[in-house]
C-alpha cells in the first residue's frame, strides 16, 4: 500500500515544484482567497526582516504570525518552498495513517455490533466491507494533495498549511491513542489560531471511548484537560520570554476578512464556531471522528480570515464518508455551487479592484454564496450520517403503519 502513496506524493510534489517555478506563483500568492492577513507569506517575510533590524515584529499592525513560526522560518527562510511542500506531504501521510487506523476501528466496531445483533436484519447493503474500505486512506491522501485548493495554498506559501499539518497530526495521534502527543499537537494548533480548541471535545471523546484513558475516573478527563492547558501555557510562556510579547493568539478584527465576513455586519459569525461544539458533542457522542470532521468544517466556514487552505482540510475527509453517498441529496447542486463560486471569486475581484465597474457587494455576495454552499454541504453530510445510523438500527425499508413507504422526519 505504500507504493501508491509514494506515487501520489511524487505527483503532488512535481505539480507544486512546477508551479513554484512558473510565473503563476506570484499571482497566486496575492490572491485574496488563498492568503489572508493572518497567513500571508509576505507578512512572514516582513516580520523576519523587522526582526533582523532589531524591531519587534509586533510593533506594527502588519505581522500576525506566532513567534514560533517566525523562529522556525528564521532558520528555514531559504528553503521555504521545500518546507511548504514537506508540510503538505506530512499532512497527507498523517491523514493516510490516521484513516487507515480509523477504518480498522470502524470495522471492528461494526463486527462487534453485528455479533451482538444490534443491527436490523435487512441492512446488508449498508454494511461496510474491507474491500471498499481498502483504498479509502489513499483517496484521502489524494484528495488532500491534489485538491486545487491545497495546491494553491501551498504555492502561495500560506501558513495555513502548517496549521493543517498540526491538526492532521493531532488526528493521527488521537486515533493512535496517544493522549500526551495529541495534547501537544492540539495545543500547537490552538496556539496558532485558537479555533482548533473546539477539537478538544471530539479528541477527548475518542480517547475515552477507545479506552486509552480509564473512563471511570473523572480525574482522567481532568488530567487530559490540564495537560493541554499547561502545554498551551508553556508555549505562550516560551513566546513571552523569547520576544517579550504575548503570542499571536489574538484576533485582529481591524482588517476586513476575505472569504466570509467581508461585511462588518457579519462579525457575529466568528463566534459561531464555538456555538456548535456542545450540540454536536451531544448528538455525535458515539462518533467522535465524524464529529471532528464536522467541527473542522465548521471552523473552516466560520473562522475569521478563512482561506481555501482551511476548506481543503475538511474536503480531504470526503472519501472517508463514501458510504454516505447514497444518502446525500443535493450533492450535485452543491458541488456546482462550490465550483461556480471558486471561479467567480477572481472574476468579481477583477471587476471590483481592477476594472472598477463592479463594487465590493458583488464579491461579498459570492463569498456568501460560497459559504452557504459549504454549510448546506456539511449539513447534507450530517443528515446523511444520522440517516444511515437510523437505518442501521431500524432497518432500511421502513413502512408506515398503513403499509406505504415511510418518511423520515428530522426533528
Amino acid at each position, binding site marked *: 500500500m505504500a507504493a501508491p502513496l509514494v506515487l501520489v506524493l511524487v505527483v503532488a510534489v512535481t505539480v507544486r515544484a512546477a508551479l513554484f517555478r512558473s510565473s503563476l506563483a506570484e499571482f497566486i500568492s496575492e490572491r485574496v482567497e488563498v492568503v489572508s492577513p493572518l497567513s500571508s507569506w509576505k507578512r512572514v517575510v516582513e516580520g523576519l526582516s523587522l526582526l533582523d533590524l532589531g524591531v519587534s515584529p509586533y510593533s506594527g499592525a502588519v505581522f500576525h504570525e506566532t513567534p514560533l513560526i517566525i523562529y522556525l522560518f528564521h532558520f528555514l527562510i531559504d528553503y521555504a518552498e521545500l518546507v511548504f511542500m514537506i508540510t503538505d506531504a506530512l499532512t497527507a501521510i498523517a491523514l493516510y495513517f490516521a484513516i487507515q487506523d480509523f477504518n480498522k476501528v470502524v470495522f471492528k466496531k461494526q463486527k462487534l455490533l453485528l455479533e451482538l445483533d444490534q443491527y436490523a436484519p435487512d441492512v446488508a*447493503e449498508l454494511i461496510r466491507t474491507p474491500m471498499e474500505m481498502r483504498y479509502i486512506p489513499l483517496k484521502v491522501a489524494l484528495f488532500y494533495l491534489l485538491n486545487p485548493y491545497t495546491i494553491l495554498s501551498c504555492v502561495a506559501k500560506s501558513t495555513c498549511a502548517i496549521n493543517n499539518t498540526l491538526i492532521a497530526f493531532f488526528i493521527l495521534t488521537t486515533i493512535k491513542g496517544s493522549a500526551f502527543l495529541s495534547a501537544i499537537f492540539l495545543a500547537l494548533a490552538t496556539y496558532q489560531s485558537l479555533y482548533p480548541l473546539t477539537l478538544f471535545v471530539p479528541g477527548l471523546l475518542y480517547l475515552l471511548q477507545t479506552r486509552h484513558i480509564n473512563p471511570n475516573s473523572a480525574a482522567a478527563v481532568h488530567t487530559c484537560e490540564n495537560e493541554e492547558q499547561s502545554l498551551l501555557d508553556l508555549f505562550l510562556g516560551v513566546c513571552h520570554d523569547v520576544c517579550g510579547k504575548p503570542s499571536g493568539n489574538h484576533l485582529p478584527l481591524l482588517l476586513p476578512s476575505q472569504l466570509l465576513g467581508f461585511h462588518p455586519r457579519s462579525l457575529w459569525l466568528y463566534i459561531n464556531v464555538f456555538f456548535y461544539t456542545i450540540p454536536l458533542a451531544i448528538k455525535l457522542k458515539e462518533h467522535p471522528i465524524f464529529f471532528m470532521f464536522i467541527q473542522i468544517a465548521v471552523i473552516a466556514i466560520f473562522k475569521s480570515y478563512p482561506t481555501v487552505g482551511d476548506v481543503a482540510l475538511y474536503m480531504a475527509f470526503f472519501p472517508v464518508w463514501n458510504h454516505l453517498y*447514497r444518502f446525500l441529496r443535493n450533492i450535485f447542486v452543491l458541488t456546482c455551487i462550490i465550483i461556480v463560486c471558486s471561479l467567480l471569486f477572481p472574476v468579481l475581484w477583477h471587476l471590483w479592484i481592477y476594472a472598477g465597474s463592479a463594487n465590493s457587494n458583488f464579491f461579498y455576495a459570492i463569498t456568501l454564496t460560497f459559504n452557504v454552499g459549504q454549510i448546506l454541504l456539511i449539513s447534507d453530510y450530517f443528515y446523511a450520517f444520522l440517516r444511515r445510523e437510523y437505518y442501521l438500527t431500524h432497518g432500511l425499508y421502513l413502512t408506515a403503519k398503513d403499509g406505504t413507504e415511510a418518511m423520515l422526519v428530522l426533528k
Partner: protein
Amino acid sequence: MGLLSDPVRRRALARLVLRLNAPLCVLSYVAGIAWFLALVFPPLTQRTYMSENAMGSTMVEEQFAGGDRARAFARDFAAHRKKSGALPVAWLERTMRSVGLEVYTQSFSRKLPFPDETHERYMVSGTNVYGILRAPRAASTESLVLTVPCGSDSTNSQAVGLLLALAAHFRGQIYWAKDIVFLVTEHDLLGTEAWLEAYHDVNVTGMQSSPLQGRAGAIQAAVALELSSDVVTSLDVAVEGLNGQLPNLDLLNLFQTFCQKGGLLCTLQGKLQPEDWTSLDGPLQGLQTLLLMVLRQASGRPHGSHGLFLRYRVEALTLRGINSFRQYKYDLVAVGKALEGMFRKLNHLLERLHQSFFLYLLPGLSRFVSIGLYMPAVGFLLLVLGLKALELWMQLHEAGMGLEEPGGAPGPSVPLPPSQGVGLASLVAPLLISQAMGLALYVLPVLGQHVATQHFPVAEAEAVVLTLLAIYAAGLALPHNTHRPLSYRVVSTQAPDRGWMALKLVALIYLALQLGCIALTNFSLGFLLATTMVPTAALAKPHGPRTLYAALLVLTSPAATLLGSLFLWRELQEAPLSLAEGWQLFLAALAQGVLEHHTYGALLFPLLSLGLYPCWLLFWNVLFWK
C-alpha cells in the same frame, strides 16, 4: 432550501424537471431571446441622466473662437507630415512650446509577433509628443487628457490642429484645477499603449519605450479625437474599449449635454437616435444600434484609442468627426466649443467619475439599459444548460440506483457516485485531448509561422491565419478517433448511454461556467456565444439525425459565430458583404484578433482558443460517441 429538504415536494420538482425538460428548455431559451429584444422598449430602457453632482448643476460658457487658428495649424501639420513622411516631432514640439505648454517626447519601438497586413507594419518605432498645461490652481495631482492618435496615413490633421488651437485657448484661462495633457501619438493605438504603460510605469505587453520625463498626476478622464476634415456634419462617439470595458455613463452624458447645447448632430454606432420611443419605429431603430453595440463590445477590440485608457481605470471616449452628404455642416469652432465645455465640466470633478453606471447597453445616445435589466437575458439562456445538466444528472443517478437495487444482495455493492462509476478514465481522455487542441490553437500559429513560411509559399501573416484554421479543423477529426479504445471497456460493463451522458454533463457545466464568467465581464460576448452555442449544446447526443446535429454544431462553433457576426455587422451598417468579401474580412479579423492579444492584451483570442473551443470539441465528441 425548504423545497429541497421536503422529500415530497422534492420528488415533484424532480418529476417536473425530468418530464417537462424539453419544453422548459425551449421556453427558457425563447424567454432569454425575447428578454433581450424587449430591452429596447421603454420600461426596460431608461432615459440617461447626469448623476455626478459636480458636472450637473454648474453652467459654463464656452469662449473658444480659434477656428482659423486650428485650420492653420492643421495645414502646417499636414504639410510637415507629408514632407517628413512621419510624425513631424520637431514641428509639434516647437508649436506646443509656442502656445505655452511644457513639452516632452517619448520614443517607443515594438516588434509585432507577425506582420500586420491591415496596417502594413511589423517593426514599429515611433515617437509620442505631449504637452502639459499646468493648472494654476492645484498641485499637479490630477489631470485630464486630450489625445489625437496619428496613423501612418495622412488623416487626423484637423484633429491635431484643433488640439493645438484648444491648447492655446486653454493656456489663457485661469480656472484650471487639473493639469491638461495634450497628447499626439504615432502609430495610433500602439503609441497610446506605449505612452500609457510608461505613464503608469508598467510593462504589460512587451513594449520598449523610453521613460516619461514629465507627468501630471492621476488621469481622471480622457477624450480621444479623430477629425479629418475642416467641416463636420456630425460627431460619432465610441465607448467600447478593450475587452468590452465601458467608460462611466456620466462621461457620455456629458458629451451629449454639450452636443445638445451647441446644436451639434451626434451619432452612436453611426446611427442617429430615434426621436419617438413610443411607437414601434423608435425601438426598432434602437434595436439596430443596440445590436451594433453588442457586436462591437463582443469583439473586445479597442474601438479608438480611448479603449486602452479604460484598462488603467481612466474614463475615456473617442469622438469622431463625420463628414457626410448632409446639408448642414459645422466648423471646427463648434467641435472645439463642445470639447471646451466638456473639459471645463471635467475640471469641476471632485472625485473620480463613479456615480453613474459602468455596465450598460445603449440603444440610443440618450437611452440606456442597466445591468440589472439585461442580465436576465443571459440568465435565461444559461438556465437551459442548467436544466439539461440536471436532467442528465438525474438520469445517471437513477440508472446508478437501478443497477444497484437488483444486485443488492452480493457483498461488494460499491455505492460509488455514478459519474465516477462511469469511469473517470473514459472522461479524462476526451477532456485532455480537447484541452490540448485548444492549447495548440493558442500557441502553435504564432510559434510555427517561420516553419510554415519555409515549407509553404505563404507570407507570415497568412501562415498564422491558415495554421489557425488548420488546427481548428483538425480538432474536429482528432478526438472522436482516439476515445474509442478507451470507452469500449466501460461501455461493455455499464449501460451504453452512460459514457456520453457523463461527458455531456461535464461539458454542459464547463460551458455554463465559462459563459457565466464571460457574461459578467463582457455581457455582449457572453450573450452572443450563449445565443449560438446553447441550443446545439443542449441538443447534442449520439442518437437521432446525427448529420443534422453535426451541421448545426459546426454552424454554431466559435469560428462560425465570428463569421456570422461579421455578416450581421455589415448588414446592420447597411453595407452588406458578398461571400468572398466576407471570407477576406474573416481572415483579416482572425489575424487582428491574434495581434491584438499580443500587442494590447485583448482576451478574446485566448478565451476562444483555450476555453470555448475545447468545450465545443467536447460536444462534438458527445455527438460522435460510439
